[in-house]
C-alpha cells in the first residue's frame, strides 16, 4: 500500500489491469490485509468485484497461486501488487493467450540482471526459468506478469518454499515449460520494479510528470503565498503554510501539514505527516504520521546506501524517515540516511546510515 503519485501501487496495478479488460479481481492478502481491504472494499469504486483470499503464512508465489484455485474460473492475469506494470505489456500477454491458449509470462530485459530470476527462451517458447539471476546476455529475467489457466494449479502443487527468494514460482513455471505449455512475451519498455526507496522516488516523479494536475488543483488549505509546481500531487486535507515551496516530483498524502517556508523537492510524504516551519527536504520519503521539526535539513542528492549488506552507489536518495518517526528541530540527514519506525531524534542531531526502529538519538 505504499503510495506512488499519491495512489497505492496496488491501485495503479488494478486500474491498469481494468484498462486491459479485466472484469473481476482476486487479491491474495497476508498479515497486513486490513489496509488493503479498507482501501479497496468490494471494488465498487472501480466498478469491478474484488474478492480476497487470505494467505496465512508467507509461503511464496506458488503457494499464493494455489490459494486462488477455487476463486477463479478460466484464464486469468497474475500480477504482483507491488510492481507497476504497463498496459502495453498486459495487452500483449492477453493477445498471446488468445493466439495460443497456453500460459504466458513476461520476460524483461533488465538493467539489473543480477537481481532477478533468469529466463531462457527459444523463439516464443520458454525453455527454462531459473530462481537465480543471470550473468549472460541477453539478460532476460522474469517480469512478474502472467496469464494462466487452471493448468498452473497443477504445476504449483507441492512446490515447497525455496531459499532463493523466488518462493517456488520458478519451479512451477519450469514445470509448465517442461510440458511445452509456456510462452514468453519479451518486453523492453521501462520496467518499474520498486524494490528500493530510490526506485519509489523516481517512479513517483515519472508518474507525477505524466499526470500533472496543477491546473485543476484546489488550493483549499494552501496559503496564497505558497508556490506549488504543476507536477506535484496534493491529497485531501493537506495544509501548506505561507511561502512554502513544493517543487517537482513531490506527492503529499492526506492530512499532511507543511509549515511556513518549508521547501520540498522530489519527496513522497505519506498520510498524516507533519513538516515544521523552514524544513528543507530533498529526495526524501516521509512515512505515515512521521514528523519533522522546524529547519530540519535533508540535503538530498547522490548517496551510497547499504541495504541488506549490499552497497548501492550513486543512488539519488536524500533520506527515508519511516512511519511515526519524529525528528526534532534542526536535525540534519546526511544523504542516504534511513531512519526506522518510531525513532525519536532530538533537536540538532546529525543522522547518517541506518537508525534502527524505536531508537532515540540524543546529542553527545
Amino acid at each position: 500500500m505504499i503510495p506512488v503519485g499519491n495512489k497505492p501501487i496496488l491501485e495503479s496495478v488494478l486500474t491498469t489491469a481494468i484498462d486491459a479488460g479485466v472484469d473481476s479481481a482476486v487479491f491474495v492478502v497476508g498479515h497486513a490485509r486490513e489496509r488493503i481491504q479498507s482501501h479497496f472494499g468490494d471494488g465498487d469504486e472501480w466498478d469491478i468485484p474484488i474478492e480476497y483470499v487470505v494467505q496465512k503464512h508467507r509461503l511464496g508465489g506458488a503457494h499464493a497461486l494455489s490459494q486462488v484455485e477455487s476463486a477463479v474460473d478460466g484464464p486469468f492475469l497474475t500480477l504482483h501488487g507491488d510492481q507497476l506494470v504497463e498496459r502495453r505489456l498486459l495487452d500483449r500477454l492477453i493477445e498471446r493467450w488468445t493466439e495460443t491458449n497456453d500460459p504466458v509470462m513476461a520476460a524483461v530485459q533488465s538493467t539489473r540482471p543480477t537481481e532477478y530470476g533468469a529466463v531462457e527462451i527459444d523463439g516464443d517458447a520458454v525453455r527454462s526459468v531459473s530462481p537465480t539471476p543471470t550473468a549472460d546476455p541477453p539478460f532476460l529475467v522474469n517480469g512478474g506478469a502472467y496469464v494462466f489457466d487452471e493448468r498452473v494449479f497443477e504445476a504449483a502443487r507441492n512446490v515447497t518454499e525455496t531459499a532463493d527468494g523466488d518462493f517456488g514460482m520458478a519451479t512451477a513455471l519450469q514445470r509448465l515449460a517442461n510440458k511445452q505449455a509456456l510462452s514468453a512475451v519479451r518486453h523492453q519498455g521501462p520496467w518499474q520494479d520498486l524494490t528500493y526507496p530510490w526506485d519509489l522516488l523516481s517512479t513517483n516523479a515519472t508518474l507525477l510528470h505524466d499526470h500533472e494536475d496543477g491546473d485543476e488543483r484546489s488550493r483549499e488549505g494552501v496559503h496564497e503565498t505558497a508556490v506549488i509546481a504543476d507536477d506535484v500531487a496534493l491529497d485531501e486535507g493537506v495544509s501548506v503554510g505561507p511561502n512554502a515551496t513544493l517543487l517537482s516530483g513531490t506527492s503529499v498524502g492526506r492530512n499532511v501539514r507543511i509549515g511556513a517556508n518549508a521547501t520540498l523537492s522530489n519527496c513522497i510524504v505519506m498520510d498524516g505527516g507533519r513538516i515544521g516551519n523552514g524544513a528543507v527536504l530533498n529526495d526524501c520519503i516521509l512515512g505515515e504520521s512521521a514528523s519533522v521539526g522546524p529547519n530540519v535539513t535533508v540535503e538530498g542528492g547522490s548517496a551510497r546506501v547499504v541495504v541488506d549488506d549490499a552497497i548501492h552507489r550513486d543512488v539519488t536518495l536524500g533520506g527515508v524517515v519511516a512511519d511515526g518517526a519524529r525528528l526534532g528541530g534542526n536535525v540534519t540527514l546526511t544523504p542516504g540516511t534511513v531512519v526506522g519506525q518510531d525513532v525519536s531524534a532530538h533537536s540538532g542531531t546529525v543522522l547518517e546510515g541506518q537508525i534502527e526502529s524505536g531508537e532515540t538519538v540524543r546529542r553527545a
Partner: protein
Amino acid sequence: MCGIIGYIGEQPARPRLVAGLEQLEYRGYDSAGIGLVDDGLSVFKQVGLVSGLDIPESTTQTCGIGHTRWSTHGKPTDANAHPHTDCSGRVAVVHNGIIGNYDELRTTLSDHEFTSETDTEVVAHLLEVELERTDDLREAVSAVVAQIEGSYALGVVAAGYDGIIAARRNSPLVVGHGSDGNFIASDVTPLLAHTRSVSYLEDGDIAQVTREGVTIWQDGKPIDRERHTIEWSPDAAEKGGYDHYMLKEIHEQPTALRQAIAGRINGIEEGVDLSDLSLSEEFLASIDEIQFVACGTSYHACLYAKQLIEEFADVRATVEFASEYSIGSGRDPERTLVVGVSQSGETADTLRALRMAHRVGIRTLGVTNTVGSTMARECDDALYIRAGPEIGVAATKTFASQIIVLAMFALTVAETRGELDVTAGRELRRNLQGLPGAVQGVLNQNEDIKAVAEAYADGEAFFFIGRRLGGPVSLEGALKLKEISYDHAEGFPAGELKHGPLALVTEETPVLAILTDGTRPEETQNNVKEVQARGAPVIAIAADGYRGGHDVEFEVPDLGLLEPLVANVYLQLFAYHVANSKGRAIDKPRNLAKSVTVE
C-alpha cells in the same frame, strides 16, 4: 430492531421481499415473515433466520409485505412473528413500534379470535371491523390509526386489494420509487438495490402505494413529500473481505475521521468552519447551558464532549440518558440548547427527549450519521458526523466521529462566545488533524492486540479505569466488551474503584487502565497499584512517561486531549478479539438491535 419491507410492481414480490429482509438482518431480529396477496392472501412466518422461510418458488404474486421481528410484546414464537392476520384471513399487517392502548382495544374485540400475544394483532382485527363498513383499504387504515395510541410504522395488504397501505407515527418509514415497482421500508438499506429515489413519511402520513405510484395523505388530504436521492452505494454496506462489519468499521476509522474534518478544519487559518450549523451566533453567545441527551455509546461520546465544551467554551454542559430526560427546574428555555446524539437519528428515547425539550421552547440540535433521519428533520438544526453507513450493532467508528464533530462544535461555541484560548484551540485543531494517522498506528498493531485479547479472554470479569476523559472511554470500552463477548465488564472513573468495585477485583479479573493526557494519569497510577496489590493483571494503554510495571502495555502517541480517543481504538480491537475467540455473533449480539426504535 424490527424491519419492514413491502413491494408492489411488475416483478414477482417473493425474491424482492426475501432480499429486502436479508438487508434488514443487521438490525437484529428473532423471527421473520412474509405476506403475499393477489385475490387471496398467503402468509409465511416463523422464528429464526430469513433464509429459513419456506416459501414455494412458484409464488407469482406481485404484491406483498415482509417483516423481521425483535420481540417486545410476547416471546419469539412462530405465532408472534409478523405479518398478523384477521379472523377472516383477508388482511395482513406488519408493524414496528408499540401500541400503548392495546389492552383497551383488545377488550372491544371480544368476539375476535386472537392467535398471538402481540400488540400488532389488534390492528388486523380492527381493520377487519372497518372493512365490513368500507371496501377502501386506505379509509379503513385511516379509521384504525385514529384509534391507536403509541408508535407505529404500519404496512398493510388485503386480499383483492391491489396496493399497500403504509402509515407512520413515531417510527420511521420510507417509500421507494422504483422503475419496475414501488416499495415501503423501515429504512433505506433494503431499497438501495432497486432505487435511490425515496420519500420519508412524516408522523400522521398514510401512503397508498400502487403499481403506478405513491400517494401520501395527511389529515385526509393528499400531500407532497419531497423526493430524496440516496447517495451511498448499496455495497458500501458490505463486508469487503472482513469477517465482521464491526472489524471493517473499526478499520474504517481513519477514513471516517478524515471525512468528518474535511473542509471543517483548515490548517492555515485559525478556527473551525462548521458552516452547516445554522444556529445563530447571537443564540450561541447567549446560552447558559448545553444539555446533551443520548443513549449507549452516543451517551459516552457526550460525556467526552461535555468536558471539552466546558473546558473550551466556558459554558455549563450536562449529559442525560435520553430515557431519563426531564427538563428540570431552574432552566430558562430561551437560554438552553439541547443536543441529541444518535448514529441512526431514529433512537426513540433520544427523539422523545428532544421532542420534550422542543415543546417547552428549547432549541434542539441533532448530531447524527443519517441524513434525512427523523432526528435531522425534527431538530432546529443538524450536524452530520459523515462516518458512512455503520452496520455492526456495536457502534465503533461513529463513536470517534461523534466526539470529533462535537470537539469542533466546542471550538465553534468557544469562538462565538469569545472564550477561545487561542493556543489551546490551535493545539486541539492540530490534534484533530493528527487523529486519523494516530488511529491508523493503533490499527497496524491489530495482531498484537489480538494476541493479548486471546491471552486474557478467559478472565472472570474485566474492569476498565480512567479519569476525566478516560472515564467515558472506560465506560465505552466496557460496553463494547460486554455487548459483543457477553462477558462481565464494567468501567469506572478510576477514583471510584476503592469505593466499592475493588471488592470484585481478583487475580482472575484483568484491569484495563487508560494512562494518557487528559486522564490525570499520575492519579490513576495509584489505582493501578491498588489493583496490582490484589493480584489483578493490568493492561495499560499509556502515553510516554506512564509505561513500565504493567503486565501488558500499549503505546499512545502524543495527541493531547484526543489521546483517550486513540486509546479507545485499542479497547475496540480488544473487545472484538475477545468476542471472536469465543465465537460470538459479533455483528448481531443476542437481545440487541442496531437502532432502538422503541422507548
